[in-house]
Every structure is written in structure tokens, then in C-alpha cells.
């Protein structure tokens, strides 16, 4: 019973990352119709920024939570402005291939610079230690991660779905032409939204740094799992991304109780099931094209 509870927590932790990452992916896709294969790389870069801030400048975890996403968002916006722009009218295939190439390039460049061994990043002192609830002892930091991600996800969802700002963004996404006709400068939103999506990925990276290996490949397996999550949740849907992320995390961990081997496969199996019964995903709608 205790083991179940611990694995449930573990599932929520993993799910937090899936949720945050697929959220960013959904925002970028919704805005730019680009499937950002490089999302995992920006997650990794966020973690590295946090590591470097600590290593070189002595800036700790809490400021990094703000600085790293901003820095990565800026980097992303520069990238979008200079290179990604050129692919805007084309088949989404090319955007996908471009971000795929970018992934290989950045990952390998980071590997050259830092090696694959992984850099240490200490858990912030305030959050180290463990919390005992009944018979279960669970690391404080991981509980923090779950809480933080939940709050962040809900905040993003709220902004996009319930505020005026979000309404404009959604309108620009779904019917850019009509929105333009109504006098809104749609193009102005593209770059910032891309940066925002990447910022979310970098945020996840900073959160992961104390828990995982800060290593160039830390995002590479994660990104494909995130794709599965996004298909499960429904591509265009913000709520879908969040719910699917936590769902996949929890189900995978529970699966691990029966057999550690199936933990990695649960997400894909779930995706297969969904494709069979509800191709649009839990919250999404089928694309027309």
C-alpha cells in the first residue's frame, strides 16, 4: 500500500514534466503550426542555464527559475525571427525537419562542450530533506515540483482560456485571417508566443536539474514521450496537454509496480488505444487538413 502511494507521487512528478512540456508544445503548435522537435533541447538548455548560473555566477535555484526561462525564451525568439520565419508558408513537414536538425546540432554541440557524464546540481537547501506522511517518506523537493507544476499549468490554462489576452491569442491561432480583419496585429504575437512556449520548456528544465542528470541528452527521450502525450490530450487543447501529462505520468508509474519494464511503454499503448477509439485525443478536435 505504501509502495503504491510512493509510486503515485512518483507518477505525479513525472507527469508534471510531461504536462509542462506538452503545454509548451501545444502553445507553439497552436500559434505557429510548427511541431517543435527541439522542445526537448530547450528543456535541456534551461537546465544548463541554471547549472551555469550556479557554477559561474553563483546564482541559485530561485532566481534561476525566472532567469533561465527568460534567457531561453529570448534565444528562441531570436531563432524564430532569423530562421524559422523562412518556413512559415510551407508544409509543416519542413518546420518539423528543421527543428529535428536543430535538435541534433545543439545536442551534439553541448555534448562536445560538456560531455555526456552529467553535471551535478544541488537541491536548493530550503527544499532538501524529506517529508514523512504516515509510513511514507518522500523527498520534499519532488513534492514541491508537483505543486509548482500544477500551479503553473493551471495559471497558463487560465490565462489562455479565460482572459482577454488569451482570447486574442486563441483567435489569432484559429482564424488568423478573421482576426486580422478585425484589426488585431496577429503577426506581433507569433514571436512572443514561441518564446513563451520555449520558456515553459526551460522552466521544466530548471525544475529537473536537481533531480536528474544535467546532461545534453536529457531531453531526447522525453520529447518523444511528450509527443505521445500531446496526441493523447489532443493537439490544439491546453487543458488536454495538462490532463494527459499527469495521466500518463501516473499510469506509467502504476504500471511500473506490476512490471518495471512496461513503464516506458504505457504512454505509447495509451496513445494507440486513443487512436483507435478517439483519434482526436481526449480534449482535441480532428484537424481538417
Amino acid at each position: 500500500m505504501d509502495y503504491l502511494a510512493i509510486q503515485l507521487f512518483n507518477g505525479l512528478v513525472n507527469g508534471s514534466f510531461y504536462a509542462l512540456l506538452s503545454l509548451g508544445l501545444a502553445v507553439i503548435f497552436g500559434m505557429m503550426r510548427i511541431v517543435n522537435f527541439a522542445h526537448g533541447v530547450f528543456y535541456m538548455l534551461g537546465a544548463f542555464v541554471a547549472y551555469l548560473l550556479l557554477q559561474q555566477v553563483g546564482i541559485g535555484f530561485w532566481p534561476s527559475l525566472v532567469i533561465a526561462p527568460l534567457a531561453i525564451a529570448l534565444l528562441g525568439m531570436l531563432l524564430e525571427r532569423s530562421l524559422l520565419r523562412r518556413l512559415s508558408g510551407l508544409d509543416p513537414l519542413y518546420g518539423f525537419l528543421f527543428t529535428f536538425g536543430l535538435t541534433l546540432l545543439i545536442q551534439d554541440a553541448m555534448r562536445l562542450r560538456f560531455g555526456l557524464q552529467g553535471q551535478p546540481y544541488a537541491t536548493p537547501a530550503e527544499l532538501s530533506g524529506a517529508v514523512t506522511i504516515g509510513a511514507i517518506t518522500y523527498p520534499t523537493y519532488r513534492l514541491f515540483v508537483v505543486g509548482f507544476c500544477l500551479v503553473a499549468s493551471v495559471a497558463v490554462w487560465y490565462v489562455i482560456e479565460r482572459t482577454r489576452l488569451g482570447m486574442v491569442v486563441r483567435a489569432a491561432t484559429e482564424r488568423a485571417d478573421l482576426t486580422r480583419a478585425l484589426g488585431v496585429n496577429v503577426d506581433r504575437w507569433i514571436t512572443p508566443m514561441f518564446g513563451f512556449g520555449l520558456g515553459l520548456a526551460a522552466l521544466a528544465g530548471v525544475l529537473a536539474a536537481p533531480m536528474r542528470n544535467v546532461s545534453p541528452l536529457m531531453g531526447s527521450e522525453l520529447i518523444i514521450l511528450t509527443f505521445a502525450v500531446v496526441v493523447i490530450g489532443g493537439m490544439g487543447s491546453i487543458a488536454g496537454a495538462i490532463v494527459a501529462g499527469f495521466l500518463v505520468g501516473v499510469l506509467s508509474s502504476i504500471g511500473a509496480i506490476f512490471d518495471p519494464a512496461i513503464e516506458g511503454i504505457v504512454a505509447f499503448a495509451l496513445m494507440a488505444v486513443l487512436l483507435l477509439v478517439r483519434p482526436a485525443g481526449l480534449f482535441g478536435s480532428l484537424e481538417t487538413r
Partner: protein
Amino acid sequence: MRRLAIAVVALAIALALPRVLYPVLALNILAWGLFAMAVDLLLGFGGLLSFGHAAYWGVAGYVAGLVARDAGAAYPVAALAGALAAAALAVPLGYLSLRRKGIYFAMVTLAFAQMLYYVANEARGITGGENGLQGIPRSFPGLALGQSMSFYYAALPLILIGYVAAYRIVGSPFGHVLVSIRDNEARAQALGYDTARYKLIAFVLSATLAGLAGSVYALGQRFASLELLHWSTSGEVVLMTVLGGIGTLWGGVLGAAVFLLLRDFLSTSDAFRDAPGVITGAVFIIVVLGLRRGLWPSIGRLAARIRR
């Protein structure tokens, strides 16, 4: 007549290749070329980007290896077994993947390939897991196939069958309907074609060719490993297809040749040897930004100019 001349020249090149290049490299080029052609069949002619085609290349490689090693089968039988396994796998996976369109389809294929990667890793009793399937034999009654040079010529007919099959599929009525579905699915449906069935058949045919290629590759390497199923393999074959030229079919072989020769050349130079990912990634970006038509059309233009 001209086509016959081109075919003869191509055959001559194929026969001479292992004497010019290291035989293993030559066979790799041919195998990856077939793999890229399979991807192009689906992408260039069917309009479907599969980003998980390594699933079929890899599964076929493992099956061929197992059949050759454990059943002691001759290499053509092993290759056939691999191709059929890929075809069988493509039916359910293709069906599920085709429930989505466009870029979602690509993502789903990628996810399925990753799933197979995990499964192969877990089923280490069969696949050897991370250790891989080592020491795959290649045999044929009456022939000694130990040396790489000998196996090249032995495998050449299999590859050529694949090439010819791809060429015939694309030129057939089926191929033409496929192209029309690519261009405007609604209109094809209006004309009475069961587009879902056509797409699934195209998917399975593509997977079979990819499987044949993967089987030959694994037999050539005498090794099947998880790398065959990895997403980077799926990505590399798409790169070769795009590099060669989407929709040109033979561009796939050209793209494979250029990519593999480039990588081989760079692996000897100290400066670039350490950074294969940087090179591959950069090639991807350059091709996508500036060379989207691929190399094959450029060659065609060059050939036209020479003829004039």
C-alpha cells in the same frame, strides 16, 4: 532505349562500387538507398511523412538475424522473412497511424517506433537487448560469404529487386492513384476511390521495402542492435530522402550516397570526427532552408544541359 542505357550504366556502377569503395560502405549505401526510396514512396508519392520508419527497418533486421542465426536459413530466406515481418507489423501500426493526418501522422509514427524500441530493449531474451544480436551468419549452399566483398555481390540481386519493385509501384495505376490522393484526397474520394485503403496499402508496401533494406543491412553488418529502431535512424533516412529530392524516387539512393560518403569522409578527419551530430544537424538545416528540392533535380538539370 535511353532508359535501358541508363539502367545498364547504373548496373555497371553497382557492380564496380565495392572495388572503388570499401565493400561494407558500398552495401550500406545501397541498403540505405532502398530505405530512403521506401520513405519517398510514402512521402513523395503518398504525401505521408513517416518519421518512424526505423520500426520496419529494425524489426526486419532483427527477424532476418534471428532466422539466419537460429534457423540456419540461407540469406535470401532470412531477408524475405524480415521483409514479411515488416509488412505484417505495418498493417496494424499503419492502420492506427493513418487515423491522423499530416504532421500528426508523423508524430504518431515516431511514437510507435519509439515504443518498438522499448519493447525490443525489454525483450532481451529474443533481441539481446542492449547487447544486440551478435554474429549473424550469412550462408548459401555452395557459397562462401564470409568476406564483405563476396556478400556485396550476393546481396546485390535482393537490393535490385527492391529498387525495381519501387520503380514499378510508382509507375503503376496504383501509383498514379496514390499521387492523386496526395494532391487532393477529397477529389479522389469523389471519384470513388477508397483512399484509406490506398494509403494503407502504400504504407505496407513502403514498410516491406524498408524491411527488405533493413534485412540486407543487418546481414551485411552481421549485427542487429537497438540502433536500428532508434528515432535518429528514422530521422536520418528522412534526411537522405529530402537531400536526394522528395518525389524523385532515385533521389533516395543519391541522398544516401552523399550522406554516407560525407560521413565516412569526415570520420577520418580529426576535426569533424567528434561531432557527427553537428554535421548531420547542420546538413538537415541547410537542406531544409535552402535545398528543399533536393539534389536529384539539380542533377537532372545538369544532365539536360550536357545533352544540349
